[in-house]
């Protein structure tokens, strides 16, 4: 410190803060994220055509735990909670958290703020797979699993694998532009086939359309159990790459000179994010906007390091989608709105407000 030209001895640094300015997960925001998720979950469980009070919910949730077991919850209410509302809230949290985390990961590996989990054609592939299944094999199943989500999953994975292979032949993965353009080309091609089938099979158009716009209809815990392993692995792998995603932000060449293989990081993160995205898209349809708006909101409010963006995107993405789903099934009750309509309808204005209030300095 220089005061009137005299150098004063620097104050001794506190032992734990050896370095200032390192990104740390701010606990206030972490707590806020957990609170938002809990609040959204409670709201999601309470809201529905049959009124169930908070007390009943608490009793029903505690019922399976020993010592709390002596509850007197009406079996029909317990059944609504356990087989309809709670699995739906959990599925919403998994889907939202996954899409937001995958979006943040894609933005990191492609160093592109417009990247979302569907950048490499996952949505187009899933839509095509599901449309094929709905049009040509309605109601059929494979080893007990409904064919539509399976076809959606396979379609998404194939599209991304195709984009990766194509991008590799074009630029040898030296830069990400070739990969992104390959994704655009694959998505356009798959969309063309999907639209053709949809037009040719007009009797299924409504079902196809509703699938594309996304919904969280789930029969009990099947959907949750189906996506849970993929989401868990995908999120764990992405979380482990937080430091490397930050490192990638200096560019492929410089990160290589630091002894990190940008290609390897990109491949592993893209595979992980794609697996998770394909799984949730297969169950919930191609819900738009969550993968872009949540990571950017976190970035604008809290900071740009992936050490912060990834975990907070997971929490707020989960909370946001549970809320959006609650709105989707109440706004026009008893009808359900497609959840993609809600995410964009609430999400876009909210995002604009955040962007304006932070002056977009962080973009």
């Amino acid at each position, binding site marked *: 410190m220089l005061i009137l030209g005299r150098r004063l001895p*620097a104050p001794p*640094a506190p032992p734990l803060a*050896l*370095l*200032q*300015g*390192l*990104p740390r997960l701010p606990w206030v925001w972490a707590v806020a994220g957990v609170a938002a998720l809990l609040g959204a979950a409670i709201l999601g469980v309470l809201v529905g055509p049959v009124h169930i009070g908070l007390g009943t919910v608490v009793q029903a949730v505690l019922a399976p735990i020993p010592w709390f077991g002596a509850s007197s919850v009406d079996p029909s209410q317990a059944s609504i909670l356990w087989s309809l509302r709670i699995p739906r809230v959990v599925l919403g949290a998994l889907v939202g958290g996954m899409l937001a985390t995958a979006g943040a990961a894609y933005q990191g590996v492609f160093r592109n703020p417009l990247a979302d989990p569907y950048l490499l054609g996952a949505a187009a592939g899933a839509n095509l797979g599901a449309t094929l299944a709905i049009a040509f094999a309605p109601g059929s199943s494979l080893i007990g699993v409904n064919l539509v989500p399976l076809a959606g999953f396979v379609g998404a994975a194939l599209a991304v694998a195709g984009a990766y292979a194509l991008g590799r032949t074009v630029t040898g993965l030296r830069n990400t532009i070739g990969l992104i353009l390959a994704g655009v080309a694959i998505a356009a091609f798959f969309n063309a086939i999907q639209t053709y089938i949809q037009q040719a099979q007009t009797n299924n158009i409504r079902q196809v359309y509703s699938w594309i716009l996304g919904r969280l209809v789930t029969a009990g815990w099947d959907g949750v159990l189906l996506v849970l392993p993929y989401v868990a692995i995908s999120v764990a792998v992405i979380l*482990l*790459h937080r*430091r*490397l995603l*930050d*490192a990638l*932000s*200096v*560019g492929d*060449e*410089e*990160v*290589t*000179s*630091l*002894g*990190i*293989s940008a290609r390897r990081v990109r491949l592993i993160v893209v595979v992980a994010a794609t697996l998770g995205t394909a799984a949730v898209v297969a169950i919930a349809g191609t819900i738009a906007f969550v993968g872009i708006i949540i990571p950017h909101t976190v970035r604008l409010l809290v*900071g*740009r*390091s992936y050490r912060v963006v990834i975990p907070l995107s997971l929490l707020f993405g989960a909370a946001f989608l549970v809320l959006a789903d609650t709105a989707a099934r109440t706004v026009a009750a008893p009808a359900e709105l497609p959840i993609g309509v809600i995410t964009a309808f609430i999400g876009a204005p909210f995002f604009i407000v955040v962007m304006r209030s932070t002056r977009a300095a*962080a973009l």
Partner: protein
Amino acid sequence: MTKVELRGVGIAYESEVVVSELDLTVSSGEWLALIGPNGAGKTTILRAIARLVSYQGEIQIDGKAVHNLTGRELARRVAMVMQEPHMPDGMSVSQYVLLGRSPHLTYFGKEGRTDHRVVADILERLSLDRLAARPLDHLSGGERQRAAIARALAQQAPVLLVDEPTSSLDVGRQQEVLELIDALRAEQGLTVIAAMHELTLAGQYADRLALLVGGKLVAVGAPADVLTEPAIAIHYHAHVRVLSLNGSGRAVVPVRSHLPSPPGEVVP
């Protein structure tokens, strides 16, 4: 203390040959400046040593072939300061310099106390400690260059490659950065290979100069032997005077053959 050897090195982008048949040995603790006109291949040679471009021939660091090392092993031996390092907006100086610890971490590893200690020491040494928390996009040109050097030093590699360390700096910052590199070289026994276009500064700071033209080595030796008026006239197509600066090297000064008339003066 680490020696760098290039033997019969050739580099081509697509089919265009950029560097050919290059033999060069840089002794341990030496500062070698690569000089030459634009497009001579200076940066390309640095990139080859850091294995950022593929090359033919052999590049060895302390007798070990560069192509046999893993990325992390190489990054623990060679650190490179790019001419225009990409500095992500919003990233703090300390976070940026900490990236230099990457070669010492495993794939999923996290920086520990030692890494923080190393970075804290480097920030202090480079007078960046007060700027540790400042975002990179709020730094001046000289501070940015110091941050880039700090990140390279955090790698604790014995070989430092520097690409045009003084471009876009004013004369004061140029001296500051070069003095810093020279001091660090002495303190830490670094071997420095720098691409430099400023001939006067190259002659003042480097032990030896390697003059490249069209990817070929045309002269290598002490500054006094390489920086001669005829050599510069032939290879740079420049009209210069080389002045001796009484013990502090040589100054290469461009000379105009026809001075323009001062404004307002009527030429008869």
